[in-house]
């Protein structure tokens, strides 16, 4: 079976968890003998093609006079880029992007319809323009390749998936890694919501990364429950050598938050829990790693609570620094208000760090060896942190069994479930 897959990013050029998940999934599918043609807006040439054939959408040209493509424009509407669509920018970057956005918005339509288009493949100012262009190219690519199933990851690629389906009549599976509600709380971008809803309605199957997301898809988007299947994410086994000789440089226990510092990740609850722990035991250090539009607010709050000597900010961590951060950590906390899945705790556990996760995360549905609290329960969170810092029996148990547990979460298994979804829609056809 051959799959035409639309993604937005592919390792090593990733900004969030989407690229990592796509990579893991395609590798798993390859193990089960499936062929995947993976389309990205922009390929850099150094992507791993061990499991997929990569198609670079920037290289695809379109004939702007073709009616079918022109008519597609009617459905692709101009949308303003809001902060929530851009997942990973700091406060200054956001200001800058907004400014660029205002300047750039004029010639939108003409550029989408140019014959050749260079995608950035990022989440920048031209995001909506790129999404529209990507959709245009979807049908063009579909006619040029031979495949059995179309698989589209997240809203950015849904329109491309739908276009490919309309052109070829092949079944469409859309994959929901994060909904607009996860990104924006209740203040959703209605255009993005509309793209998501239409994509799922047009799809033959919707795969969600957790039951939590499945419920949102059914309740908030009105998608037929029979169409929606949960396939939990997995995690790649670590191929990095242990950080040889890396030594923790502070005596205190280190408790870490690592992720975007945005509303839905619940950074505020981490700060408040830190305050409670520090009141009881000053010999703990808290680290908030990452950046995002709530960073300055968190810094100000930490200063207000007068715990800046025990609560540190690292900014965005790259490459080795993430591993270093885990190597220094004694507890990892993910207090997300809404987390469709949440792969970072798995990475922490893989690095022998016990984790505290919110019950409002998809990953809590499958993890046993993690302390689960409600995101708003800062007392419970503080308790859990304090316990993992002080009771060695507890933390050692979590480290030992947690590592085994994570190692058993293989993409191979997740890919098997995805394959079963393919089989079903293929047969139905």
């Amino acid at each position, binding site marked *: 079976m051959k799959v035409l897959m639309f993604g937005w990013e592919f390792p090593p050029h990733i900004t969030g968890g989407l690229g990592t998940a796509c990579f893991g999934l395609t590798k798993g599918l390859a193990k089960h003998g499936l062929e995947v043609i993976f389309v990205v807006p922009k390929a850099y040439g150094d992507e791993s093609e061990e499991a997929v054939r990569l198609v670079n959408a920037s290289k695809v040209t379109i004939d702007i006079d073709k009616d079918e493509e022109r008519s597609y424009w009617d459905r692709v509407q101009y949308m303003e880029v809001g902060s929530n669509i851009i997942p990973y920018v700091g406060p*200054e970057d956001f200001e800058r992007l907004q400014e660029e956005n205002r300047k750039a918005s004029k010639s939108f339509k003409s550029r989408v319809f140019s014959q050749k288009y260079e995608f950035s493949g990022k989440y920048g100012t031209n995001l909506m323009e790129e999404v529209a262009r990507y959709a245009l190219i979807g049908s063009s690519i579909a006619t040029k390749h031979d495949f059995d199933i179309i698989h589209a990851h997240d809203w950015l690629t849904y329109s491309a998936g739908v276009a490919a389906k309309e052109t070829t009549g092949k079944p469409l599976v859309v994959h929901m890694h994060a909904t607009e509600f996860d990104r924006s709380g209740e203040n959703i971008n209605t255009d993005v919501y509309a793209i998501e809803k239409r994509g799922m309605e047009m799809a033959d199957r919707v795969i969600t990364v957790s039951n939590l997301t499945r419920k949102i898809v059914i309740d908030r988007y009105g998608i037929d429950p029979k169409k929606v299947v949960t396939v939990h994410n997995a995690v790649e086994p670590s191929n990095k050598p242990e950080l040889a000789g890396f030594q923790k*440089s*502070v*005596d205190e226990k280190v408790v870490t938050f690592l992720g975007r510092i945005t509303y839905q990740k619940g950074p505020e609850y981490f700060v408040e829990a830190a305050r409670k722990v520090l009141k009881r035991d000053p010999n703990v*250090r808290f*680290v908030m790693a990452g950046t995002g539009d709530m*960073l*300055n607010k968190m*810094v*100000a709050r930490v*200063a*207000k609570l*007068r715990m*800046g*000597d*025990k609560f*540190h*900010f*690292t*900014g965005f961590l790259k490459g080795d*620094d993430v591993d*270093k951060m885990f190597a*220094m950590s004694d507890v990892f906390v993910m207090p997300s208000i809404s987390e469709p899945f949440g792969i970072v705790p798995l990475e922490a556990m893989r690095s022998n760090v016990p984790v505290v996760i919110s019950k409002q995360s998809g990953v809590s549905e499958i993890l046993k060896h993690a302390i689960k609290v409600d995101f708003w329960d800062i007392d419970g969170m503080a308790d859990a942190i304090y316990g993992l810092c002080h009771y060695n029996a507890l933390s050692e148990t979590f480290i030992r069994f947690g590592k085994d547990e994570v190692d058993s979460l293989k993409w191979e298994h997740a890919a098997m479930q995805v394959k079963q979804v393919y089989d079903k829609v293929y047969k139905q056809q």
Partner: protein
Amino acid sequence: MKSICFYFQVHQPFRLRTYRFFDIGKNHHYYDEYFNRMIMRRVAEKCYLPMNDILMKHIGEFGANFKVSFSITGLAIEQMELYAPEAIDSFRRLVATGNVEILAETYAHSLSALKDPEEFERQVTAHSRKVEEVFGVKPVSFRNTELIYSDKIGAQVADMGFKVMLTEGAKHILGWKSPNYMYANAINPKLKVLLRNFRLSDDITFRFSQQSWPEWPITAEKFVGWLNKINPKEEVVNLFLDYETFGEHQWASTGIFDFMKALPGAVFSHSEFKFSTPALLAEKLQPVSAIQVPYPVSWADEERDVTAWLGNDLQDESFDKLYSLGQKVRQIDDPDIQRDWNYLQSSDHFYYMCTKWFSDGDVHKYFNHYPSPYEAYINYMNVLSDFMIRVEKHQPDTAAMLGELIEKGSQFVKMVGAQAGEQLEKASGKAKQAIKKGEEKVIPVFDDIRNLSDAKIKKLVKDLEAEDLVAALKDAEQELVNKVLPNLSRATRKKFEDLQHEMKVTKKSAAQIRKQIEDKLKALF
């Protein structure tokens, strides 16, 4: 005879490098040498050297009639020594003419006067010592960091022996009064106070190149014209400026150097004014009244208060955390700790964390290498956290030998216990005898203590329980107790004293105490 009092401020902080969380506890190097060197070189070449030359020429031409004063912070002197020694030589030559007064201030350009009087005094002393060492003169007039002044600070400065202090002639402290007189401190009238004429000073510092200003351009003649408009009864015009005004804040291309070249000549030919310095003015002028300054003023921003450095949470937390270390740091005899303690106090670090951008944003951005106050805070707190660990860990002289002596102490206790145990096994009746023997063994060891160094005692007693000590020392001479007591950790000492107190209160008999020792020894086997 009316006077112009020129005072120039020279300061450069040791700016911090990007110091990350991963560095805490591991890397104790905090400063951006490249950046600091670059700025010092630039300022020396664009400002200090050319401006010093101009002043030198004026002194050559007008002799004793031309005088100016400087304050140069300890940190600026250190950086010139490191990166621009020719600038130090140039200042030395100026001071050597006798026409240039060097003022006292805080070594680190710190805000210690607002928080920690003891630290304030230490820094003023350290700065005076450094000035004497480098320039061979002892400062007699005082100016505080950023001209920060209040009645209380003035009174402390008077107590330190200074006769005159400089501050801002802020509108809200002067009201209808003129800054152009000598004033006195409101608590201690012996301290004379000179007030900055902010209008004329700012004409040079801020408005010199401002082309939208109706008076632009300022020439020496025009400026002297303004001086002549001042009421003839007034005594002194205090022009207090950042030295970097010349060539740095106002570039050479604005004509600032030409202005300064022409000014003294114009003053002497077109006015009655003479140049003077704070020390000379303090001898000559009598205060017209006391100046009431209940809350600190400074020369910064429109508000002329201390909100450029303190007031928001970022600033207040880092400032309070820093000064909570003062007591401890002053007891540590370690040049690295002392150096960093000075460097971390410089007011600039808190200036970078200022969030009131609107009225004075431009000034705040000058020489500021942080993209935002939040980054300034994060970086400073990372450095401070590391510094706190170092201060905390600093236990002079004990650490190295500890293990060995603890071992010896516990071996001894075990030995006594074992011997007593053997005896007990042989015949329980003889137990008391054995214990007595044990006690006899304890006493000689404590006798040896007389000959031990404090460090060794510290190690020896570290692992002993307070209860054991009370029992062991109960009959000891006071001399012995005095030798042991200061070497206990604070917690043990407290416990020890409590126990001793308890014993006195309850007047336990000697037998009871012996019983306690018996129990202790029994517990050992």
